[in-house]
């Protein structure tokens, strides 16, 4: 039941605590460990510290008959792979690089930092970082970047006491969870977690929604964590097509968020303005 004519949802106090915009591409044959440092050298003015993380495995979405085919071997995890985090001076923005993946994350962190908005901040930061990366690959003559997939993730935290108290309130927050039984045997659930996948039209991608209760260490509070991830293949590897897909993915994430959460939460907690 898509209705793209409805105004794009906007909230004064959205619960988003992290966003990630990313690209998965065929690993570059000439990439080696020294390239992490060489790339960092070019962005170190803005991203002044780093961490080494375990590599991400491929998460290419498959559709229909594609599912029967084996995973493409060039996306397999290579034993020598690593993933480097390059973290911004203000600890709010993160560039993740591995041979085959590129992501830019924004996080709210501790305090009351407002969500800086996709159009004004998150998207332009991704563009700047992606251009730095593609320029670097070109300058180092590492080959052509063949983009296989784009992804957009929004992580939302719903603290206890803000619209819900326990599992019996989940249906008040997420209409998709009715929380009903025949009433013959089961008590109220101790905890509720769920997931749902939605296909984008024309096999342009898939939106994955997961909700789970969690404990947030930063303020020692119980939360419901709602994560929405859209992934799909852009028309080509060009920057314009990558951004077009990210815009589409972001639209599905935001409209999906608005659709899966209740009007009561929109109005009373997140102050929906549109």
């Amino acid at each position, binding site marked *: 039941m898509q209705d793209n004519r409805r105004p794009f949802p906007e909230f004064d106090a959205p619960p988003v*605590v*992290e966003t*990630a915009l*990313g690209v998965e591409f065929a690993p570059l044959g000439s990439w080696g460990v020294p390239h992490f440092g060489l790339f960092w050298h070019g962005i170190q003015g803005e991203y002044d510290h780093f961490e080494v*993380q*375990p*590599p*991400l*495995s491929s998460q290419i979405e498959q559709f229909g008959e594609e599912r029967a085919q084996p995973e493409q071997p060039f996306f397999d*995890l290579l*034993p020598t792979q690593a993933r480097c985090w390059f973290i911004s001076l203000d600890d709010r923005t*993160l560039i*993740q690089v591995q041979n085959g*993946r590129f*992501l830019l*994350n924004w*996080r*709210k962190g501790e305090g009351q930092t407002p969500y800086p908005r996709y159009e004004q901040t998150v998207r332009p930061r991704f563009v700047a970082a992606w251009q730095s990366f593609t320029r670097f690959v070109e300058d180092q003559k590492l080959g052509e970047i063949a983009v296989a997939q784009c*992804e957009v*993730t929004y*992580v939302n*935290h719903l603290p206890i006491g803000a619209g819900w108290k326990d599992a019996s309130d989940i249906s008040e927050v997420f209409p998709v969870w009715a929380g009903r039984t025949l009433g013959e045997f089961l008590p109220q659930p*101790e*905890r509720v*977690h769920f997931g749902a996948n939605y296909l984008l039209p024309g096999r342009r991608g898939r939106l994955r929604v997961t909700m*789970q*209760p*969690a*404990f*947030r*260490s930063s303020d*020692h509070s*119980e*939360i419901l*964590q709602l*994560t929405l991830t859209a992934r799909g293949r852009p028309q080509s590897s060009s920057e314009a097509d990558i951004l077009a897909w990210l815009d589409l993915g972001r639209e599905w994430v935001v409209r999906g968020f608005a659709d899966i959460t209740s009007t009561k939460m929109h109005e009373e907690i997140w102050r929906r303005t549109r």
Partner: protein
Amino acid sequence: MSSVAFTLRDTVLQVLPSDMSLTRPQNRLRNAFTQRDAVLEDLPDDPSLARPQNRLRNAESPLWTKTVSLANASGWLVGTLHRLHDVARLPDNWNSYGAVAPNATALANAQNFLHELSELDFEPSRIDPSAENGVCISFRAGNRYADIECFNSGDVLAVTSDGSGQPQIWEIIAASGDDLRMAVAQIRTFVRS
């Protein structure tokens, strides 16, 4: 091969003094064999445990914000996490003997262990700050005692003792993935045996 590893490790442990100062990080090098090495060698029929890629996959996530999932958590986990963070708020010199308060590294490792314990519904007896600078998660059942000490340095030691013989002490290489799971499984088996 596995029996050789266990024998040598036991021999090394037997030459150690029997006091609890063995839990100090500076003494950990006396233990030449890690629990992971021993257990992996004891499980040759499960190749997935020995593949580094599989261990790494446990930790992979493109997300930056870290939370502890309560989706399959035991009922006691939330209270225990609150206790852990009470411990984290202690000031330096909390014991008036110069102990440093637990830092983020020790807390994160302790949190990982608590999550694994919750998955097994294996509730610890106590969560305490460690006089050796870190967090101690302990278990007691009758005369059986075990603990996991997560130090500020990032080192993690496990101890089991039945109150009569030498305590068994080993280093846990990584406070995540299979190393963590095997340490918890070994302690649970010991405490419940």
